[in-house]
Every structure is written in C-alpha cells, then in structure tokens.
C-alpha cells in the first residue's frame, strides 16, 4: 500500500470569541484606547474572550484514490477542516502533509463576476481555481457542454438564471485536474437532474484514481460516492472508517440532538389528562433522531392523568408540513385512573418517503377533547435506508407512501 496522500496529525484550530457587541473588525481606536488603558491600570480587559476549538486534536490519513465523506451536524467543524486543508486558514496546532495538488470547491462560483460574460467567467474562475490559460482553453468546449450554456456564452452572468449560474460554476470546477479534490456542500443547489449529473461527474473523477474529500448532509449522496467516512462532532473526530459504518454511527449515536421531546406542562385550566413526552424509536425501543426510510418505528408518548376518566382515548396523527393529514390512529376507549402512563403507537408497515412530518397528539374523554397538541412534534424520515429494507424501495421520490401495490401482469392474447 502506498503512503497516504494526506496525513493529518493532531490538527487543532482555535478561534477566540469576543464576548462583546463588538464590530466584526477591530478599529484602531479600540486598540489605542486599550493600550492607553493598560498603561494606567495594570490589566483592563475590555472584553472577555473565550476560546473555541473548531477542530480539536484531529488525526487521520487518506490514501490515494480514496473518496472520503465528511459528515457531522452543523458546527461540527467540517467546513473548518476543509478550509485548513485548502490552505485558506492556518492551523493553530498540528501538522498536515499533502502529497499532491489540491483543488477546492468550497463555494459554487467563487470569483464569478456578475458583469462578465459566461466565457470570461470560465477563464477567470478557472485561473482562480488554479488552472493555466492553456489548460482552460483546452477544456473550454467540454466545460460549456457540461454546463449546457452554449447560447448564453456572451451574456453577462448577472442575466443568467440561478440554475444556469450554478451549472456553469460547477462545470468549471469539475474540470480541474488535481490529485486531490475538496468539495464542500455544493450539491445542495441546482435541480435534481443536475445534482445527479454532478454526482456522476464526481464519481468519474474518483474513478480516475484521484482523491476526493466531500462534505455533505445528503447521506444518500455521501454513501453513493464515498468509500471512507469521517464523522466530526464539536471539532472532534469520533469515527473514521468504511462509509457505511460511519453513517450508521452518525444515525445511531445519541450525539445527535435530543430525541426525547418534553412538552411544557399545561397551565390554567389544567386538563384532566395531558401529554408530557414524546419519543420516536425503533422496534427495540432505541431512540431514533431520524428514521431510516423503510424502517419500522414507533412513537412512545408519555402522559399524565389527573382525574379518573371513563372513556379515555389517546390519538396520534401524522400530517405533511402543509397540514395534509396522512393518517390518524386512536386507542380504544377505556376507563383510566389518575397516574402517569405511556402509550406506544407502532408503525406497522406503512412507509413514508423521506422528509419531515408533523405529529399531532390528542387526548379525549367520551368524545370531549381534553388536550390537542398540533404543532410541537415532528417526525423525520431520513433518506438513508438500512440495507435490509432496500429492495422494496424503488424510488423514494415517487410518492408520499413508498409501499408498493401488488402488481400482476396477465397475458390476454
């Protein structure tokens, strides 16, 4: 096995946060007055500062030809890592050794100038990304064809639609030929067809044996493209290895946001029964911040009963974000004594497509509503499938419900 193409050792990036409503930049006046003050008083800190470790002792290696997906919640340090690797910011501690040319695409269309034409911007952007004039000229036709902007080459890009703009920008970057390509969440833009095209291009780049580092929140894209994964959490590297495992860790590990939703206790008048908690979990009772598409899940709702009731019913409804009700389930009416209870609603084989949904909870007694909780709880179905359920999902964008109807084909003649 060849030596690693990227070696990162104990990489730390520290930022100093100033706790003051200070302007984003320092004014000379502040420095001078601070200096003056410290002359008179021994120590007069005007601001309290706090250290913030955007990256905290991160070490890993990447081998040539690896396609590395970097995942983590917002603020985990992914973008900082890419900026350090791209040499835009300097590490505070640690060491990085890179054996090859790096091209980074941290933003779509860096350096595009709105007044310049498409043709001019291809040259400008290419040279900013590190291509020579001859190299750009040689690839020019290919770039234009990829971006599908032939007709508008001599139009200023400020007149472009946002889709055209993004296509052109990605096309330039995609035709770089470095040994190492660093790509930040750039596929979040553009329509689905173009996203597929970009991913395809990145796959072929990787296929040519080049190394790709890719940050994305789209798990299906990361899983499709990458063979290795890095999981960052609050600046620390908490998992590295095969992509599947890292994604699993990301989903399972409770590093994600709190999975138990606690409802504020109702006030004045306190209903005879009210909900206290909600948790979405898998069939074994493990909490799930996001439900993998096609996987079984259940909702565990905690509630408190204050007075004895004769015909208590608890209901759970699921609706889209546009308040289109999809399904509502009721418990059977029963008498109930005061106390704390939980109800478990098991989702039994109806599979929703990926996305966020609203959960609505209702408590009633003999047809009278005791409490109605419409807008507090959400269910999110992630587009990462666990492999066991994969076969039944033909196309996750084909409808709200992904269960398949039974289909028969009969020969008639």
């Amino acid at each position, binding site marked *: 096995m060849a030596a690693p193409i990227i070696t990162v050792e104990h990489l730390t990036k520290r930022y100093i946060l100033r706790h003051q409503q200070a302007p984003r930049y320092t004014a000379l006046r502040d420095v001078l007055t601070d200096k003056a003050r410290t002359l008179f008083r021994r120590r007069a800190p005007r601001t309290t500062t706090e250290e913030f470790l955007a990256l905290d002792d991160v070490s890993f290696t990447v081998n040539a030809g690896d396609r590395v997906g970097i995942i983590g919640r917002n603020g985990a340090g992914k973008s900082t890592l890419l900026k350090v690797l791209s040499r835009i910011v*300097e590490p505070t501690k640690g*060491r990085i050794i890179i054996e090859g040319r790096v091209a980074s695409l941290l933003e779509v269309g860096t350096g595009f100038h709105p*007044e310049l034409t498409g043709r001019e911007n291809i*040259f*400008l952007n290419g040279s*900013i*990304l590190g291509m020579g004039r001859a190299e750009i000229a040689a690839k020019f036709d290919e770039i234009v064809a990829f971006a599908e902007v032939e007709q508008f080459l001599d139009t200023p890009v400020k007149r472009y639609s946002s889709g055209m703009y993004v296509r052109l920008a990605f096309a330039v970057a995609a035709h770089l030929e470095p040994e190492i390509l660093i790509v930040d969440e750039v596929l979040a833009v553009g329509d689905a067809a173009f996203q597929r095209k970009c991913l395809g291009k990145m796959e072929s780049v990787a296929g040519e044996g080049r190394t790709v580092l890719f940050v994305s929140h789209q798990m299906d894209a990361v899983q499709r493209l990458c063979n290795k994964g890095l999981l960052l959490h609050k600046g620390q590297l908490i998992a590295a290895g095969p992509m599947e495992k890292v994604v699993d860790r990301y989903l399972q590990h409770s590093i994600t946001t709190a999975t138990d939703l606690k409802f504020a206790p109702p006030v004045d008048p306190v209903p005879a029964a009210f909900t206290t908690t909600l948790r979405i979990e898998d069939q074994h009772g493990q909490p799930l911040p996001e439900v993998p598409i096609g996987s079984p899940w259940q909702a565990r709702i905690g509630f408190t009963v204050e007075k004895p009731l004769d015909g208590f019913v608890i209901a759970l409804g699921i609706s889209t974000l546009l308040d289109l009700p999809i399904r509502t389930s009721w418990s059977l009416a029963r008498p109930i004594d005061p106390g704390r209870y939980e109800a478990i609603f098991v989702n039994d084989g109806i599979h929703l497509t990926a996305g966020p949904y609203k959960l609505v909870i209702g408590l009633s007694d003999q047809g009278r509503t005791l409490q109605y909780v419409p807008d507090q709880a959400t269910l999110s179905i992630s587009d990462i499938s666990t492999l066991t359920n994969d076969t039944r999902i033909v196309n996750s964008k084909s409808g709200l419900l992904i269960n398949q109807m039974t289909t028969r084909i009969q020969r008639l003649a």
Partner: protein
Amino acid sequence: MNKYRIVLEPGSADRHYWRDLWNYRGLFGFLAWRDILVRYKQTAIGIAWSVVRPLLTLGVMAFIGWLFESKLPGNVPRLLLVGAATLPWTFFSTAFSEASNSLIANSNLLTKVYFPRLIVPISTVIVCLIDFLISFVILLVLMVIYQFAPDVRILFLPLFLLLALVTSIGSGLLIAALNVKYRDFRYIVPFIVQFGLYVSPVAFSSSDIYDSERIPEVLKFIYALNPMVGVIDGFRWCILGGETALYVPGFLLSIGISAALLIIGIRYFRKTERGFADVI
C-alpha cells in the same frame, strides 16, 4: 519525493510561498484583466474615460499653476510641465488607494480559495500601470502639438517609473494588510491621497520650494522626505530635459524611503497574510 508535497504547520506557509507565487503567476494577469473588463461596463463613453480623466486633471492642475504663477523652467509649456507630474502622481494615487482596498474588495476570494495573497494588491497596481500608459500617450500627443522634443534623458524614464511602482506597491501592501484588521484605513487613505497632492510638486515645481529663501531648511528637508517628490522631479527631469534640474540629495532620500516602504510593506503583509481569512 513528490514535487507538490505541502506541509502545513502553524507558521509554515513561508516555505512554499515564492514557489506558489510563481505557480499562480497567471492570476496576476487574470485579476487585472477582470478589473479592466469590469470597470467601464455599463458606461456610455466606455474606455474614453481613461483619456478624459487624465485630461481633466491636467487642465485643472495647469490652471492652478498658472493662477499662482509657479515658475516655468526655460521655455517649457505649462501643460507639459504639469503633465510630466500629473502622470506619475495619478498613477501613484490610484494604485495606492486601489491596492489598499483590494483585499477587502476581494474578501469573497480570500475566504474561499487559496492563492498567494500578494497577487491581489499587485494586480490592482498593474491595472493602474495600464492607465498610466494610456495617459502617457496623451502626453506624447501634447508634446507633438507643442513641437517639444525630449532629449536623451528620456531613456531614464523607466527607472523613475520603477521608483513610482516600488513606492505605490510598498505603501499599498502595508495599508492593504492593515486595512484587513483595522478598517480605519479606509478613511485614512483618501486623506493621505488628498494631502499628498498638496505636498507633491504637481501644480508647482520643486524649484519653487528648494530655491525659495522664505522656506526654512527644515521644511525643505521634510518636503524631500516625500518619495513622490523624487519620482515627480525625476519624471520632469527625463521628459522636459534642458533647464530642469534634479536635486540629487532629495532624490536619493526618496529612493531610500521608497525601498524602505517596499521592505516594510512586504514584511508586514507576509506576516499577517496567514490570518487574513480569519479576520476579514
């Protein structure tokens, strides 16, 4: 060993810097080209501005010189006397102010792409140099109109142009780097440029100062500290020839100060450059 090997450590950027600058040399031209292309977009008279602007400055300066009866050396027409000074002064003032603002104007690049940051201010100076060449053609036309033939000293002109370049790059780099952290310089720069016009021999000539009996020696020395005095005197000496004299001690002082500015500018720029993306 891989020739593209890069080691990133705190404070290590220096090792690859000059090699990188060479690898990215194409970017000097591209950034300058962008600024030139963009500048006159959506203007009615377009590129004609680069002729109109120096002509207007020239006219105003010549008028002020005439108003205050600044002395003319020999039979040099006033427009040429003023022109030989307006050219380098305009070059310096635009190059200095554009370079000072260049990093902030390109902050979107600094935070998203790596390249040696020196390229940004220097490419703006290149744009100003092109403006200078255009206005130099105007001066040549004026010389033809006045039937004024320069003597052999004009061959030294590139040396003085180099001095002007050194002065503007040195001061531009210093202020550009300071500007990233202290935006105060955004307000200081126009003031320096405005003030500089009054203390540089644009509307008048240096002999008005040096030959005056009214002005104390110490003020003459302070006057000579301004590096643009050396540049402008040099331009006049080259272009106008004949009667114009070059005040040598003052000129040497200018060279020294320009060189010092360049060294300080590059040093400070290089020292703070690594933090630009964090601060800007």
